């Protein structure tokens, strides 16, 4: 198993309702999630805003520390590990962010953005690896000397992917990576990701609010609603016979580009 998640709870302090003295009240974001991500799987995590899907992603990468429960990555319990202990492991689980503009440091060139993590983990010959990563995501090598704001949205997201795969991770978390893109770039980025996952034998967790995109990419789907798993199923099964009421509501709400769909 790549990931084993058991009874995961996470709450954050609500600073807007903090009393003058004493601690802020806590809001529960994740309420007891349990699921597995098998080696080589492409798992879709779907839910509306406020469902806790991004928080779950950040907990899996230990950008947030769970309140209780456990997260096991490849047999190692990382639930409460300190940052220093995690550091050497971090190469193995990587993330692609939703907003490529905010996730690429605007003051560094693309080459530096990709090479930074490589140098940190002591990879030899980072320059060659940057070129290789750019090749893999289908960007010209000359892009290494460009700044993020000089690229289009789709190109920026490719840089985000290149940064993640350059480290040769075992697992990648993709958090809403196409929601900010135009449909044509969406298709390209998804195709690219699908190809890379297959070629590099990656395990992928793909967070999205869009069931159409999830269906395209994922073999198994977890549906989140208000911090709980309301349904977990194989993709085909979920679309053929959705069990949870929330899943059905989500599916019914998607406007298909088809004038005959019964929708309103």
């Amino acid at each position, binding site marked *: 198993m790549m990931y084993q998640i058991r009874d995961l709870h996470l709450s954050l302090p609500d600073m807007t309702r903090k009393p003058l003295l004493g601690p802020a009240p806590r809001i529960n974001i994740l309420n007891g999630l349990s699921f597995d991500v098998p080696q080589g799987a492409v798992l879709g995590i779907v839910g509306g805003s406020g469902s806790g899907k991004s928080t779950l992603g950040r907990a899996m990468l230990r950008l947030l520390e769970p309140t209780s429960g456990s997260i096991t990555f490849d047999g190692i319990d990382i639930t409460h590990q300190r940052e220093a202990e995690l550091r050497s492991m971090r190469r193995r689980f990587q993330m692609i962010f939703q907003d490529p503009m905010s996730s690429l440091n605007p003051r560094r060139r693309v080459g530096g953005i990709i090479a930074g993590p490589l140098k940190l983990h002591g990879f030899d010959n980072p320059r060659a690896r940057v070129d290789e990563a750019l090749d893999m995501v289908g960007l010209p090598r000359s892009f290494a000397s460009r700044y993020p704001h000089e690229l289009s949205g789709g190109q920026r997201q490719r840089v985000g992917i290149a940064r993640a795969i350059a480290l040769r991770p075992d697992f990648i978390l993709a958090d809403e990576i196409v929601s900010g893109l135009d449909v044509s770039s969406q298709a390209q980025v998804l195709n690219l990701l699908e190809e890379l996952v297959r070629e590099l034998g990656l395990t992928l967790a793909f967070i999205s609010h869009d069931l159409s995109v999830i269906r395209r990419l994922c073999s198994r789907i977890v549906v989140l609603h208000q911090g709980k798993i309301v349904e977990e199923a194989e993709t085909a099964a979920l679309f053929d016979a959705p069990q949870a009421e929330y899943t059905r509501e989500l599916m019914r709400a998607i406007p298909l580009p088809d004038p005959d*769909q019964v929708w309103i």
Partner: protein
Amino acid sequence: MSGYLNIRNLSVSLRGGGPILRSVTLDVAAGQVHGLVGESGAGKSMIGKAVLGTLPRALQITAGEIWLDGQDLLKLSPGQRRHRIGATTALIPQDPLTALNPSRRIGPQITRRLVDILGWTKAAAEARALELLAEVDIPDPRRVMRTYPHELSGGMRQRILIASAFAAEPKLIIADEPTTALDVTVQKQILRLIAEMQARHGTALLFVTHDLGVVSKVCDSLSVLYAGKIVENARMRRFFMHPIHPYSAALLAATPTYTNPQGSLMPVPESVIETVEQEVTAHDRRWGRR
């Protein structure tokens, strides 16, 4: 010319720079919904802004006509134009958070336009606002009138903006990506609401969106834009059954659909991009980069 809004050969360009809109021609009939579809940077929002006279300062209209109810707006003086647009047209903006003033209560934000611009009495405007809030399914309108925007959810705020757009019974509403910031389940409610309100009030609606799925649900006709040029004007049903332009077809194929996992999300082929690019270049050669 039939229809409420007729745009003829509208060209907009960056001051001292290249074109943003290239000879755009389209019609929105009274009581109809017309969609404007395109990728980001295609200029779809700019058409709405040109009609409303709210183009960014860096842009200017270089040619064309904008006929609103049989009158060319561009032939009017700026003051007359503002008055005419104010009396007949309203906007439903994209971002419900920034479109409402965070430091004012909801009530005055709806009634202000009625009182200040249209000269209603305060009592009449308030009665109208209550009526509209009830019409957009806001529970307890009296209480909501006294709340501040941050106390309401995104969906509620968008309902208020819709109510506020319909307040003065405009003849034309421009909706600029009104549901992009919302969850699909909320989007469905809001789209349904816009469609109902539009039908009930018989308003012409120019609906800017990047989502062909949304277009197929609310529009009667649509225009597809690429690089500020209209690639295809079409009736809605015909467009989804038989898109004529290859770019339209490619856009349709790129749109994700969960019902058909294999046949959707096709990248737009290079050859199609080349075709539209050639058309854009041909247009610029013919008309100059005005």
